[in-house]
């Protein structure tokens, strides 16, 4: 009995010492690997795949910490809703500021999030263009052509997609200029345009699938980056880009989610991730994926791939995102009034 007790005591002591020694050694080793979740909008998959790989190497070299960035993509509005409902995003890289504002309104992101990074927390820009089939068989040259009877226009649902809201507002802004600021004419114009939309996808990538892979429609209203990607990489002999006379300056913003990074202990790496998007390397990657870089030098380097367009901003024409959202896309707003599925 004495022998058994002594043996058990020795085993217990050894295990305890081992646990303590192991713990101490672990304390002296490299920082713990960390995982971030980047919740983004629909067409940024390829962009962030490359950004994530580059950032992991950069961060490892800088801090010794291994980082894995997981991605989630979908319509920008849907993604914001998912985060509000509990999707634990460390960072948001959405299509428009209103969607991040909606998350910030729930108290999980600081209200001044847009002032925490340069250029209103928008490290790259884009715009809205038209993608048509090779040879432009329907002779589409500008926004006006999209309301021709019989034309089939592909654009996603503005209720769920950030890109779709940019599309809608680009068309509205064009109509305002065309008819000297006449809101009624603009409303009629956009109503006619959506009358020509046979399918509403929930996100921009879904609409690209509809137009490119399913072969539906005569024209796709698309992010410039998505249109160039489709034209260059999905079918060089199948599509061509039509640059409208006027379009909107789209500024997709980024922000870290304060509540989540505090909970996960990932604030430093999340901040580093977002700042990396502004670095020369991050800006190069953005340009390679057809987003317009903010850095003037890199923008100049890639100038040839971006057509010159007369761009207006959402602040100039719509008084900012909150006002545009409330007027056009809130339940019962203008879009709900002009788009009624099933009613010709």
């Amino acid at each position, binding site marked *: 009995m004495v022998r058994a007790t002594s043996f058990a005591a020795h085993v217990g002591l050894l295990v305890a010492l081992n646990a*303590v020694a192991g713990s*101490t050694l672990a*304390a002296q080793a490299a920082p713990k690997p960390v995982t971030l979740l980047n919740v983004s909008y629909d067409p940024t998959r390829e962009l962030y795949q490359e950004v994530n790989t580059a950032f992991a190497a950069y961060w490892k070299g800088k801090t010794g910490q291994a980082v894995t960035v997981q991605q989630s993509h979908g319509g920008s509005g849907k993604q914001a809703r998912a985060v509000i*409902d509990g999707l634990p995003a460390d960072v948001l890289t959405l299509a428009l500021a209103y969607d991040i504002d909606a998350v910030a309104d729930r108290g999980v992101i600081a209200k001044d999030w847009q002032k925490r990074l340069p250029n209103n927390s928008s490290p790259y820009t884009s715009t809205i263009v038209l993608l048509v089939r090779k040879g432009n068989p329907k002779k589409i040259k500008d926004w006006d052509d999209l309301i021709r*009877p019989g034309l*089939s226009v592909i654009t996603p649902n503005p209720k769920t997609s950030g890109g779709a809201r940019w599309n809608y507002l680009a068309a509205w802004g064009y109509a305002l200029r065309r008819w000297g600021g006449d809101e009624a004419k603009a409303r009629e114009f956009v109503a006619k345009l959506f009358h020509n939309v046979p399918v509403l996808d*929930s996100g921009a990538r879904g609409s690209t699938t509809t137009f490119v892979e*399913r*072969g*539906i429609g005569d024209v796709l209203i698309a992010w410039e980056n998505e249109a160039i990607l489709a034209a260059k990489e999905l079918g060089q002999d199948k599509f061509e880009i039509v640059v409208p006379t006027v379009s909107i300056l789209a500024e997709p913003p980024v922000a870290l989610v304060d509540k989540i990074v505090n909970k996960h202990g990932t604030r430093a790496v999340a901040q580093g991730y977002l700042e990396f998007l502004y670095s020369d390397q991050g800006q190069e990657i953005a340009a390679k994926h057809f987003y317009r870089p903010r850095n003037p030098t890199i923008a100049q380097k890639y100038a040839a791939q971006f057509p010159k367009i007369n761009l207006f901003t959402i602040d100039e024409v719509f008084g900012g995102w909150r006002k545009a959202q409330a007027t056009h896309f809130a339940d019962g707003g203008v879009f709900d009034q002009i788009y009624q599925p099933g009613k010709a």
Partner: protein
Amino acid sequence: MVRWGWTMTMLGAVSGALAGGARPMLAQQDSTPSQDSTPSVEERLQELDQQVRILQRQRELEQDSLAAAAKDRPKLTTDKDGFWIRSGDGKFALHVGGYIQADSRTFVDDAAGRLTNTFLLRRARALFEGTVFKYFDFRLLPDWGGGTAVLQDGYVVAKLRPELKLQAGKFKGPVGLERLQSATDILFIERAFPTAIAPNRDLGFELTGDIADTLVHYDVGIFDGDVDGGSLDTDLGDGKDFEGRLYFTPFKRSSIVFLNGLSVGVGGTIGNERGTQASPALPLYRTPGQNTFFTYRSDTTAVAAVANGQRWRISPQAYWRIGPLGLLGEWIRSSQEVSRGTATADVGVTAWQAAGSFALTGENASYRGLSPRKPVTAGGYGAFELVARYSELTVGDEAFPTFANRDRSAQKAKEWAVGLNWYAERRIKIAVNYGQTSFDGGAAGGADRATEKALLTRFQVAF
């Protein structure tokens, strides 16, 4: 049925297009860019092709929508805590659970038959807890243990912010470390002496929350006020207790791994309690074998001792888990102003314990119970855990002889105990404890009460 309906829709579209009639999906596409107002066959075929593609795509999107809608439907799930019903949006949830603890108590070296060997249903509790309207939690815990129906917990929580929750109803007061541990997760079959002093369940309001990135937990509340170790459903006096606790886990995310599991805290209460001859509002103290070893005088024909003034408690406490090793320590002191006739005194009672657990099968120790690496449902043998503790309770000299009878009430109790727990699953366990409790005083002529040698067993099923 779906496929048949789909086929019919397609046929309708095709026949409509060939007939040059109305097109359901492109009602406005009533002209084409041909020179002639009559579409050519090729144009009609192209249009037909588009319509078929549109219908196919719309069907794809409908299926996507159905799949998304399925996510929003209520779900019945099971997890480590049991059965859950959750609404798709997560705003409503109901957890239905419960636990049964079937025990035996055997007292060794009790030839005189002073103590009763018995089987008993220590706890038989049904649990209903959940969330309504996202921000409001509730919990109901009725108990039929021992053949008596008692509502142990019944409270609501308004989750104002992660750092601020308002809790109201009947629940455990925020003082004792082992007291706050669920009865399904405690290391031993019965809790140690500090829990005899910490208030049990009480009625009141409490603000609670996690701050500093969950490194600090706080509770502060106002309650009717329990006697030591007591549970309350009806308050007989106007005096209330303020109770609070601060609990720190300072190294939770530190790179010093062996300190990650260290937590320290302090809880306390202060208030006034005034009893009556019919209801003295004073505690009694029991051994881990649940035999009473201390009571205030209430057996004379003259007057009983009653609570008559300020009562306070303070309890520093700590828990530390290092891999399979868990250590729990707490100290508590209570003071109650007591009177009997014209005599008054502040009677102090002190208790402490040091307890340890070691998972023989290598699991991480946890304040919330051991989770077997190889549960029996996964074809394993469960988890084995060794436990040991030492515990004391001392009543102040001021209690004797005026307020307590040394011939009946021991002044001090000292307990050591060891045990073995086998966990088939996280909260399915069989436990065997052996403990000895010795006393100072408590027997006739001021002699020491006989040492209690208790062999306790438990079969617990909880979910």
